[in-house]
């Protein structure tokens, strides 16, 4: 019996030693988003206020590389493969599910605004989650000299190249160490409309119904794009 016990103990010990550390771990992080309440911006003597900001976000990859091009982020630390809809003006926490990850250090992020151009696709396509098939729908008002102009922008943020993502490198630093962590996406859509060109927008209101569409190719449209891509992109709160 003693010998048997010894053998069994040794075997169990051996089996335990056979297990153990195998490197990085797979974890899940809680994902949520918070918007920023609309604020009124003064520009060219006008008051610009957003009333709606629906934004498609994703897919997103969080990379170990400082430069998050697709080639350097072929293996990510964390990812959100889905496209989620952010209510950009809602400051309340918006649960968005989980972010799948492995332990490791994140240095950058790459992501789309609901329109992706996969390697296997011949053209970029919007996600079904994208609001009305666009990256973002921004609506608001412009008040100037007692006149109120409503504006609407259907923003399409498209990847420049097949297989690339729209936001091709955005620095963010975080070390994923295990389960229980969380990521909060922060957006401030009001900052995207702070460079609208007021006069051309009023000029667009030819029929006088007080509603204008900010069309692609216009300066205002480009300024929104720049806001989403460069000036105040989505923030990451770890």
């Amino acid at each position, binding site marked *: 019996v003693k010998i048997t016990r010894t053998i069994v103990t040794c075997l169990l010990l*051996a*089996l335990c*030693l*056979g*297990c*153990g*550390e*195998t*490197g*990085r*771990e*797979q974890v899940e992080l809680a994902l949520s988003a918070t918007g920023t309440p609309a604020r009124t911006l003064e520009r060219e003597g006008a008051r610009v206020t957003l009333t709606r900001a629906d934004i498609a976000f994703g*897919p997103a*990859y969080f*990379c*170990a*590389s*400082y*430069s998050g091009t697709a*080639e*350097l*982020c*072929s*293996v*990510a*630390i*964390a*990812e959100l*493969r*889905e496209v989620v809809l952010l209510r950009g003006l809602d400051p309340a926490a918006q649960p968005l599910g989980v972010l*799948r*990850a*492995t332990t*490791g250090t994140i*240095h950058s992020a790459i992501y789309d605004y609901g329109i*992706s151009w*996969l*390697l*296997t*696709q011949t053209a970029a396509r919007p996600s079904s989650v994208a609001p009305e098939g666009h990256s973002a729908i921004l609506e608001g008002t412009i008040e100037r000299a007692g006149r109120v102009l409503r504006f609407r922008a259907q923003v399409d943020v498209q990847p420049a190249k*097949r*297989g690339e993502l729209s936001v091709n490198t955005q620095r963010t630093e975080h070390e994923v160490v295990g389960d229980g962590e969380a990521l909060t996406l922060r957006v401030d859509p009001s900052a995207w409309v702070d460079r609208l060109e007021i006069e051309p927008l009023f000029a667009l209101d030819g029929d006088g119904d007080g509603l204008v569409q900010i069309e692609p190719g216009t300066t205002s449209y480009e300024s929104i794009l720049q806001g989403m891509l460069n000036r105040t992109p989505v923030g990451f709160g770890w």
Partner: protein
Amino acid sequence: MFMVRLAALSAAFIVPVARADSSAPFDAGLASDAGSPADAGLASDAALPATSEAGRVADAALPAASEAGLASPDALLPPRVLSSPPPVYPAAHLQHGEHPTVVLKVTVLADGAVADVSIEHTAGPDFDTAAITAVRQWRFAPAQRGTQPIASRIGIAVHFDLPELATIEVGSVAGMTPVVPHRHEEGEPHLSDDAHPEQPSAAFGATALVQAERRAEQRGNNDYRLDRALLEAAPHADAAELLKGAPGLVVARIEGDAVGHRLMLRGFDADHGQDIELTVDGVPVNQPSHIHGQGYADLGFVIPETVRSLRVVEGVYDPGQGDFAVAGSADFELGVERRGTLLATSYGAFDTFRELALWAPEGQPDETFAAVSLRKTRGFGQNRAATSGALVAQGALGSRKLRLVLHGSAYAARARTANVLRRDDIESGRVDFYDVYPLPTAEAQHGTSLRAQLGAKLRYRSDDGANGELSLFVLFNDFRLLANYTGFSERSQIEPAWAGRGDLLEQLNTTRTLGLRARHRTARYAPTSWAHGTLELGLSGRLDQIAQAQNLVQAPLNTTWDNRVSADVTAADLGLYLDLDLSLTRFVRLKGGVRADLLAYRIDDALQNFIPNYRTQTYLPGYRRSASGIAAGPRVVLEVTPWAPLVLSAAYGEGYRSPQVLLLDEGEPAPFTKVRSADVGARYAVGELAQLRASAYYTHLGQDVVFEPSEGRVEPAGPSTRLGAVVYAELRPLSWLRGAASFTYVRATLDDPPPRTAEDPSPPFEPGQRLAYVPPVVLRIDASAEHALTELRGQTLSGRAGLGLTYWSPRPLPYSQQTAAVSLLDATLALSYRVFQLEASVFNLVDARYAAMELSAASNWDPEATPSRLPARHVMAGAPRTWLLTLGARL
């Protein structure tokens, strides 16, 4: 290398001789003569030393007998050996270092033939059979009464000794001189040199030639020789599966029947052979710098029925071990012991057909045979159909002193492969475990393998025991594999706009090899009474010309949309070693020496320095370079025998693995990976009943490699360390029941994986982590029982049952994952009657659903979906329960 000695002969003469040429009267005469006063001679036994040297001593000691024999016309003269083909040392016992004596009693008929062989003193079934088989072929000058030939009954003690070579040619045994007759009483022990060390004994260098010229066996405690009986215990789908019997060796075929098996040993993920030196009759199978994996080896060309024995050396302790002997080495010895013609046809699950024709002409050495095997299968699951054929012919020519063995073989195989499936796709029901992705890029996966070999081996042995061999070989290997490991993740490097066409990697590799191996072992040198030994000088050389390419192709038309590798390589490996086998008293034995290999490479890498189309071209693509270096190190085994059944051993050795040359830089001085290996252990023999071994080992590898799915080949992973233990038992509780069991444990860790780089900012491995994919615990049990069942119409109906059980403990995977444990049971039942044999084999009897291999990588197998860039588990399915029915006829 070993020696078989005829220790002593004794003879009883049978009279009257008139009946001696008939077995029945002879027997009667023998019986009736037992107490006959007429048989003065019968009452005497003649001790017949088998050598001229022995004869001289006998003459000197016993002159009266000769004189008496010559003086009287009725004087009895004992029989003399004219021809004495030596017995074959049973291969299964070579590893145990046994040197038993079998005492036989035989009748030498009046015509000099041997009849009525019986065992007086057994040394176990294998040795008994070997001795009887040999002695039945002996020819004598019959005993004489005066000038009249008469039948006689003599005793023969056949002594089997390890490991020294024969020192006296068989032919010299003839011409014995009669000595004083000595009556041999029933039950009386016969003379042997153990009992009478002063008695000179005959040494038979001839034994069976193959064995006689083996080099010193038993390199450390983990040197295993699996003979045919053990190899046949469990069913084997192919020759590579014979390796399963070696402790700790994991064998799995994961990429179809045209791609070599994946091997693991002692904590090494040997992939397709990078860490195990595989040879067939000494001819290397591993291919240096193969595009699919360094040291790639495909044993598909070996027809399992032609494998006589398998020697597996775990560790690097033999100076004869060369490139890729990192975890160890395995040599398949070809030979057909059962002579005759075997025709067999098999049919089994998944429409598997196999036809075998094996011709082993009677009276020829085991090495002379020809065999053809053809196989076709639909394969388990989708996309696994395969056809293959192998042909081998070889013959032995010449005398026992100088023998030439010629070998020719050819092999061809083409097989489709399902390759990898994402585990999450299986769990979601998108694909079945045995399916292939319903995509052209997945369904186009297949492999093709072509191989041809010509070789000649010249063996020689001199009278003083010196021996050696020279072998030359020419090899042609051609390999093509279309495999997709990552789905749709690649972009063309030549034309970046081309992307997402499916990552169907086409790997092409053609290797032409010219090689030689030579060795010479000196005669035994004994400077003192307590020390003796031999010294071997060996060399090996091979020159490989390798043409390889790797492309991305788009199914189903196989249009090429990217070139990744296009290289021509010339590789040379010139090895030299010294090997000393030194015995210091009967307690201590030292085996080992030093080996050095010069490795030299010239590489013409056409796609290196590729110029992306966004960069101004200021030079032409291509990178030609060369590198060379010398890998040298000692290998030594010290064995201490405190008392006969127990042998303690300690071993240390340094080996090497040649590089994947595309990773070399210009002038790289040490283009090899070094392994340091140490073993301590003990083995204990309980007679014929059991052989037990236990050992612990440590190995350190300078540069490990891991499989990189995106490239479909292995990439450097930094140094690694292994600490493990092996327990092995071979049992024979009954003469018809035999088994072997092994337990191997290893802790394998990566010491210092490559740091992050700009290209690989998130390497999957961390210092100290467990080596992925390698099972820490491997258990293997083989058992077989063979027995006569009944008599049918005067013929014996015999049966055989065998099983093989394999257990792999959960294997660690990257990212804290691990696989499930795997238990596989294979079994076989066979019936033999007259010339017919019916065999039913079942593989994976319990129908375990298991992944033969798992990978962890990012992939995208849904071209419509947003790809995941997180590493995911991928499986390569192992075969489900598979049966095979074989009907054979031995003609």
